[in-house]
């Protein structure tokens, strides 16, 4: 039973989510369509279960850093900062959630989020520009035929994509567009098709209970 019930849950939920978008009309007897079951019940349920999972995962974070602070492990100050900012943001966000129309609450939360979390996030994302420069410098060497193909394609497209490319050579933009529209479409399409089939088979094995590693042992 410990194994069968989860497999049954996965199967039933999977089938309903599968039929939801592709069928219309009521299921005989139930007087409801798959679509309605998904939108009235299953989708909101997922949102709620996911919300509980966030709590579970956060306990791990809190326990780990809590123990670093308690044991005064090197760098524990940072762990303390993590715990404090986590608790602070949790409380602030809960108040914001429960009083969504109070302008002061909304403004305060907007201020802390926009000036702390958002810039940290934006800056981290922006580091990519630096990394793309160092990675391309390091990796794009004509060491082999394969590497040369990669290198030449990347350079043509880089120059074709920026307005300056057209100033260097008239044909960079059109060459870039051709590479993007023809060989790139072919390569991508094949990779997408292959990966889709792989993903399909993986999902199918799970749906039919042929793959149960995620359920663990007993």
């Amino acid at each position, binding site marked *: 039973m*410990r194994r069968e019930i989860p497999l049954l849950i*996965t*199967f039933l939920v*999977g*089938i309903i*989510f*599968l039929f939801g*978008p592709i069928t219309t009309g009521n299921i005989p007897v139930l007087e409801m369509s798959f679509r309605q079951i998904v939108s009235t019940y*299953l989708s909101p*349920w997922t949102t*709620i*279960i*996911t*919300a*509980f*999972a*966030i*709590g579970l995962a956060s306990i791990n974070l809190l326990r780990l850093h809590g123990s670093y602070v308690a044991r005064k492990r090197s760098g524990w100050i*940072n762990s303390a900062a*993590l715990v404090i*900012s986590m608790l602070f*943001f*949790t409380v602030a966000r809960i108040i914001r*959630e429960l009083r969504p129309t109070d302008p002061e609450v909304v403004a305060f939360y907007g*201020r802390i989020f926009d*000036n*702390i*979390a958002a*810039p*940290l*996030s*934006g*800056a981290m994302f*922006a*580091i990519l520009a*630096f990394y*793309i420069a160092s990675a391309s410098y390091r990796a794009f060497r004509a060491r082999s035929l394969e590497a040369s*193909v*990669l290198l030449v*394609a*990347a*350079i043509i*497209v*880089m120059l074709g*994509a920026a307005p300056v490319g057209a100033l260097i050579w008239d044909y960079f933009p059109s060459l870039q567009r*051709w590479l993007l529209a*023809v*060989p790139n479409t072919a*390569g*991508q*399409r*094949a*990779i997408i*098709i292959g990966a889709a*089939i792989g993903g*399909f088979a993986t*999902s199918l094995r799970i*749906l039919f209970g042929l793959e149960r590693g995620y*359920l*663990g042992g007993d």
Partner: protein
Amino acid sequence: MNISTSIWTWVMAACILAIFSFIYKENPIYRFAEHVFVGSTAGHAIGMAVGNIHRFGWVPLTTKNEWHFIIPAILGLMLYARFIKGYTWVSRWPIAYLVGNGVGLSLFTSLNSQAILQARATMIDLIVHDKAGKFLLNRTFDNFLLVFGVLIVLTYFIFSIPQNGPMRKVSQAGRWLMMLTFGVSFGNVVAGRISLLLGQISILLTRWLGVI
């Protein structure tokens, strides 16, 4: 130059610079910012989760008598059974539910939108004429490349047949085409990544330093 006098703008600028300092070297300032970052966004997510439970579960349950919302609440609580020795198996029910959601949602769409419809899009004229009936060499070439390009790259992804003889050659050609594709993708992305950095630099230049 018109440097900001708002404390919040300075906090924002400090956050950006603390993260940027990492590219020089991992350092105590980055470490502090990193921990605050993880903590604050985790807190944000927990708060949102509480909000979601309240809005999508508690409110309909208590005001509209939608009793079925007890089910996800119970499933959600069952996740925590993993902390009770001997009852870990209980937490597999909600996991099974979530897995079922993902599997059901991806099954048809991945096969249909990503495999079948992409295959269909590759069923194109191999010999192209314009409306007046004139043969178009460049479009014909493009279409040949599209159709056979897809076929040779797919050959690379055949796993259960040993790749030797002509099959090996085709699959090698597939690899080259993929490398070309990767080069194109990489080159094309550089622009987007630079614009993100530009965004951050211009925030610093406008809102903090007031240079532009």
